[in-house]
């Protein structure tokens, strides 16, 4: 399952951060999730609640999710548009020469820790 794979990496990355910065407890993790990253957020939170127990520093942490809206750039008329609404085809000029500029990512924005 895709969500579980991401969680495993997230936990590993946070474990490393905790070691580097001598943290004993992470209280919250804020994750920015792109609208078209393919991550199912409900499933993601469930996976997290299950998996965090395996890591001492993470076991009491809360996962906070923020959505990053997806934006596509049209190279023909040089404008941005909303990806989720219009997909691959530019709503201004009908061109298909478009690419995603934002919305596919999954970034750890910040953590609260001690």
């Amino acid at each position, binding site marked *: *399952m*895709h969500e*579980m*794979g*991401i969680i495993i*990496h*997230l936990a*590993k*990355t946070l474990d*490393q*951060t905790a070691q580097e*910065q001598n943290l004993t*407890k992470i*209280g919250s993790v804020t*994750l920015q999730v792109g609208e078209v990253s*393919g991550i199912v957020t409900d499933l993601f939170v469930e996976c997290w609640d299950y998996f965090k127990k395996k890591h001492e520093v993470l076991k009491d942490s809360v996962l906070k999710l923020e959505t990053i809206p997806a934006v596509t750039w049209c190279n023909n008329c040089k404008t941005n548009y909303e990806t989720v609404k219009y997909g*691959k085809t530019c709503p201004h000029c009908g061109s*298909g*020469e478009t*690419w*995603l500029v934002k919305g*596919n*990512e*999954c*970034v*750890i*924005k*910040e*953590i*609260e*820790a*001690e």
Partner: protein
Amino acid sequence: MRTIKLNASVTASNDLDAQALRSRMKEKGVLLVNIMSSAGSGKTTLLSKVITDLKDTKIAVLEADIESCVDAEHIESLGAKAIQVHTSGMCHMDAGMTAAAVEAIKADNVDLMFLENVGNLICPAEYDTGSSLNVMILSVPEGDDKPLKYPLMFSKSDALVISKMDTLSYFTFDLDKCVSRVKALNPDIKIFPVSAKTGEGMDEFEKYLKACLKDWRA
């Protein structure tokens, strides 16, 4: 509690593992080739053909599968070293799993090492495995619209093999349309229409692999 800004990729730990594996492969002079495609597109058949054709190149194969060992057994029967990696339900290989498989296969003096990734067009594209060449396969029966539906893998691959070309007349697969859709996503990608069954186009693909190996060792 204090707030610590990270702005790190969730897969930051994977990216580090991948970088480490790449430098190790560079030292050893082994080119690690990540093969991605959906299930049944012809990965094992293509690799079998490459192994039989390239007698002067030492090849090893890491077979990632959710279950079973049939692919690895088949590759070994052709005389190449192979290892089966069970991903225990995971939909992709990551760099840590790949590094462990590279360690476990214990193959010496290898030139090309292939990683047959899990059959799936989405997840494998999102993880750096530590490979230095990413090849994706799209088979004719899957259809020419796949670049529109799964753009990420097409945009991250160095080469695209269009497989099962011998079946072209049975399907409505527009090769030119497919090529232009792929090039729109990734202008630098190399495209090889082949049939592992008839051998059509295999020569160009094998030459490409050899050229990549030479560049990697330069």
